[in-house]
């Protein structure tokens, strides 16, 4: 588990990352509630966007390793690329899941109205993995972390708007709402609506299932690029 251990260490190695991975999510607990929208307080509505950004921040470790030739060096070592990738992703997952727990249960401790916090935690965990898979697929097509991050910011903004995380979907034309179904952020938004409305468990499983389907697809896309 060397790669896992050092991946955690590298993730917290600079001040920006340290702030981003610890204090930044805590701040979201204190965001106010909206009057009519969103169904959860703003911090929880936007937390999905945070997960998307943190995922790319974490996975750039893999991009840097590839660009600098570390992956090439590891290809000669007695460790498979799959093992290297899995250990890195496991470390990133641990960080993301801990953030989800801090935000959800921190909110519970502070008395924030989260309706069904355990289900919310489950939803955030599912979306964390989806974010990680999207970020992995995204970095697999870039050689420079700067360009990968800059273009990703635009993509995330688009995903957040069209998925209904930044503004209510109802204000969009019908055609756009139909297209929104294609975005993982839409399903996160649906999940949060379900938590507030207390729908059937089947619906919640469907929402999480779609998120996991995205996770698998993007994970496959992202893990195919190896050394060159």
């Amino acid at each position, binding site marked *: 588990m060397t790669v896992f251990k*050092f991946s955690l260490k590298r993730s917290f190695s600079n001040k920006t990352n340290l702030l981003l991975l610890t204090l930044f999510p805590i701040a979201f607990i204190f965001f106010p509630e909206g009057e009519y929208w969103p169904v959860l307080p703003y911090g929880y509505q936007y937390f999905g966007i945070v997960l998307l950004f943190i995922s790319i921040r974490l996975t750039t470790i893999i991009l840097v390793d590839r660009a*600098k030739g*570390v992956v090439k060096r590891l290809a*000669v*070592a007695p460790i498979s690329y799959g093992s290297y990738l899995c250990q890195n992703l496991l470390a990133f997952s641990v960080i993301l899941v801990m953030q989800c727990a801090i935000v959800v249960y921190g909110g519970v401790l502070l008395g924030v109205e989260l309706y069904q916090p355990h289900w919310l935690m489950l939803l955030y965990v599912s979306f964390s993995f989806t974010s990680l898979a999207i970020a992995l697929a995204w970095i697999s097509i870039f050689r420079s972390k700067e360009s990968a991050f800059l273009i990703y910011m635009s993509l995330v903004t688009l995903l957040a708007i069209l998925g209904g995380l930044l503004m209510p979907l109802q204000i969009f034309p019908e055609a756009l709402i139909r297209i929104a179904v294609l975005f993982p952020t839409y399903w996160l938004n649906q999940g949060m609506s379900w938590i507030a409305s207390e729908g059937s468990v089947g619906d919640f499983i469907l929402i999480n299932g779609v998120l996991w389907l995205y996770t698998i697809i993007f994970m496959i896309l992202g893990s195919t690029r190896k050394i060159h």
Partner: protein
Amino acid sequence: MTIASMRGVVKRYGSYVALDSIDLDIHAGEIIGLLGPNGAGKTTLIGTLTGMRPFDHGTVELFGQSKHPFSHENKEKIGLVTQEITIFEELTAKENLQFFAGVYGLKGEVRKQKVREVLEFVGLSDQANKLPTKFSGGMKRRLNIACALTHSPSFLIMDEPTVGIDPQSRNYILEGVKRLRDRGTTILYTTHYIEEIEAIASRVIIMDQGQIIKEGTPADLIQTIQHEEKVSFEVTDPERIPEGSLEKIAGVRRVLTAGNDITVISDAGSGNLDRMLSIIKEHTGVLGIQTERPNLEDVFFTLTGRQLRDKGEEQ
């Protein structure tokens, strides 16, 4: 004992042939200097030899295994010093070594001990807890080498390990390579700095355009192109040497006089220096002697018609 061998290895990138029927044997305890200009196929050869790059044709055998040459068992015996500096900038020198030692399965006290040893070997013990961002280019290169040594490989591949560093660091690295050889490590060393190869290699392989065009000991290679020897004498009074006395010596082709300098050109291997010297000393005083011999650069130029380095690459 043969550590690695390649037979008829071909590697293509589309229609471009990067490796063209490579036959190569590497024996235990050798330092092989792999010499060639940029694009000769050196890095591709390393890639195929280590299993990083699949090849299109031929066979590769490592440590006597041809069926599964790139097994984890074999990989544990190989160390790779990459051309790029492949270290983690966000981890200290010590942590970098701990990482690579861990990847090779070293744990606990053994790992600590190896990390200490390797830091000392590359002269970075006092920098162990510093980040590489604070290091000079030479120190980074040394750490890059150290990362390949934590598991004590018996076969070390060094791909241009001295690119872009100062002469002191280069000498330090070359001395380190010799010390590794003395410990029994087999080394494949690629570079396009001829003087490095001359300083350390027991055998030289010259590559160009994906092919091995010549191999042998440095002396053997020089011998193949050495057709004449040139000796220059600086004398007190060249007029006093009787005309034609030097030309009569066996093997002498020409004698040129300019000022106080007499240059005698003989057939290669004539072994007539003593005779020349005694004739000159008989008639006049000798102030200095200079011999000119071809080097590996001349070998490369003779074989390929090109210089090893572009002018822009000269340091």
